[in-house]
């Protein structure tokens, strides 16, 4: 180990109380940023959950639609025009909307209906753990997520309730399809979705388009645009981005999460800067001695930067361990915290940057130190 690194680590570990205070500051800051950004990513994934689980290539949506949950409608006649275009395999209407779920006990709760043609498989319930999705086409059948059993008064397959005055029966159960709005999703057949949401039979919320295997996507999209007037044609990725952007930035939710993360960075930087400054001040005599001995400024900066980096490494390691526990704990929650490898790398770099920036105050203090002071003490 280099002597500068030895000196830096000894300076840090010499005062264990201050080291603990520094590490608490870093851990607090990094965990706060990690959670905020993890929530941001988790929220981002959650708001596009439905879009991510469609198996089609394109979306035809009403003009300026903001997100998947947007209740705007388009004319179903567009379907016939699109089907006639070269390169189109199928066009599947999608009907969504809020409705009321009335338990057998009479208790009411709002639900979000998702209905598509089950045979086309454009948007079917996934993670099915019990029952049969194909049974959704028989009568007034529904699929619900078992996370919402209590909310919906459901005990399992065969449970019944009422939606818009129609007696419905649970025929399939999913696991982990949670809504960020906390309103339970209820999967139904397209026909029943119209009934439960009051959508006219000549209207749909979106059209899901599956292309032929040999179709040129861009050319086909342009051809669709030429035929659908005011409606918009988006790829799945484009619609996902638009939906995510609306919920994260259009509603202010993302800004709030970012503000929290920024606060974490500021708090962390201030704490590390304060403790590093105070540590440097305590060792000022040593730095002045080094300077008197003729060390270059860079040598002294290196000691201080090493101190900052040691803080960063230990702090980030501890914060990562806490972060892993938090991720585990929230995995099944309504809003799971998601930490991707990129977020992990970004946070590690942020921690290093935060600690190194914090060292500036200490470096400035050392710069102002006169080496001659060692002769006065």
């Amino acid at each position: 180990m280099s002597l500068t690194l030895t000196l830096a680590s000894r300076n840090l570990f010499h005062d264990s109380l201050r080291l603990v205070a520094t590490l608490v500051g870093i851990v607090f800051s990094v965990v706060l940023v990690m959670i905020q950004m993890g929530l941001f990513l988790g929220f981002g994934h959650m708001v596009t959950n439905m879009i991510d689980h469609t198996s089609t290539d394109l979306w035809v949506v009403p003009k300026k639609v903001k997100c998947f949950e947007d209740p705007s409608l388009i004319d179903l006649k567009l379907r016939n025009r699109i089907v006639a275009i070269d390169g189109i395999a199928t066009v599947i209407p999608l009907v969504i909307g809020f409705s009321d779920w009335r338990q057998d006990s009479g208790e009411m709760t709002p639900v979000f209906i998702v209905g598509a043609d089950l045979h086309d498989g454009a948007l079917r319930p996934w993670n099915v753990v019990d029952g049969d999705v194909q049974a959704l086409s028989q009568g007034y059948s529904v699929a619900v997520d078992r996370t919402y059993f209590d909310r919906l008064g459901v005990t399992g397959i065969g449970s019944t309730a009422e939606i818009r005055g129609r007696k419905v029966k649970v025929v399939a159960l999913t696991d982990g399809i949670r809504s960020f709005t906390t309103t339970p999703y209820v999967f139904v057949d397209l026909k029943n979705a119209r009934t439960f949401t009051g959508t006219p039979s000549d209207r749909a919320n979106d059209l899901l388009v599956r292309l032929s295997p040999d179709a040129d996507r861009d050319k086909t999209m342009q051809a669709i645009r030429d035929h659908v007037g005011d409606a918009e044609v988006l790829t799945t990725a484009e619609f996902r981005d638009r939906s995510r952007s609306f919920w994260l930035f259009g509603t202010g939710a993302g800004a709030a999460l970012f503000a929290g993360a920024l606060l974490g960075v500021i708090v962390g930087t201030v704490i590390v800067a304060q403790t590093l400054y105070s540590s440097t001040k305590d060792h000022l005599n040593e730095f002045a001695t080094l300077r008197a001995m003729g060390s270059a400024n860079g040598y002294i900066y290196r000691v201080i930067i090493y101190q900052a980096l040691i803080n960063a490494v230990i702090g980030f390691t501890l914060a990562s361990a806490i972060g892993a526990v938090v991720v585990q704990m929230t995995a099944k929650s309504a809003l799971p915290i998601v930490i991707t490898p990129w977020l992990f790398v970004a946070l590690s770099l942020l921690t290093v940057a935060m600690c190194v920036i914090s060292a500036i105050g200490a470096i400035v203090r050392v710069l102002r130190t006169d080496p001659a002071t060692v002769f006065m003490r």
Partner: protein
Amino acid sequence: MSDLVIEARKVTKTLGRGAREVQALRGIDLSLKRGELTLLMGPSGSGKTTLLLILGCMLTPSSGTLTVCGTSTSNADREELAKIRRDHVGFVFQSFHLFPTLSAAQNVRLALDIRHERGRKARKKAREALERVGLAQKVKMRPGELSGGEQQRVAIARAIVANPSVVLADEPTSALDGDNGRMILRILADAAHDDGKAVLVVTHDPRIVAFADRVINIEDGLLVERPSEQGELVRLPKAVGFGSVAAARTD
């Protein structure tokens, strides 16, 4: 190689401003030569420390010139002055100024580390320097585990390990008892006589005059040099080497 290591010519230094302005040095002419231990003595406020700081390139003169190993310090900035110190000067401080969290060997290695001398060779040099000051058995000890005299010997090892041309020592014996003080002076005298360094010791301690090749008195910012043939200023015999220091410590 010239014997002249430091040459100060007509050096003045004014400290403070306005009503607080003090003429600390008033035209100092001083040369330090290789192989010579010089004592700089004088009462408090006479300008000893100011002169030491100027000779050690930590202060720049208000007027006059200073040359260290042929390099003029005129117009040198802080980094250039640091380089001159790094290349040519070793310091021994009154309060030792060792790094309390580092071992004796690591403290000595610091002087090499700042000169980019690292690795096995540096470790060997540091160990040898500590052996020369009689601390071969204490290389791994931290300053807090050493006596005052031992700490000062570590500081001397640190000052000489990089083989500087000049060693400047500020009251190196003031915090030590008589025996330790003599041992320190013996080591510094050996550094001058055996290694050919110019050694300047600032001191109040009249007991150590016997170790000096010459004694310079400073009063009111002016030098008064006493000739060495006055009898009490006796140059140490060459036979007193570093080996004898270890023996002296044991005794």
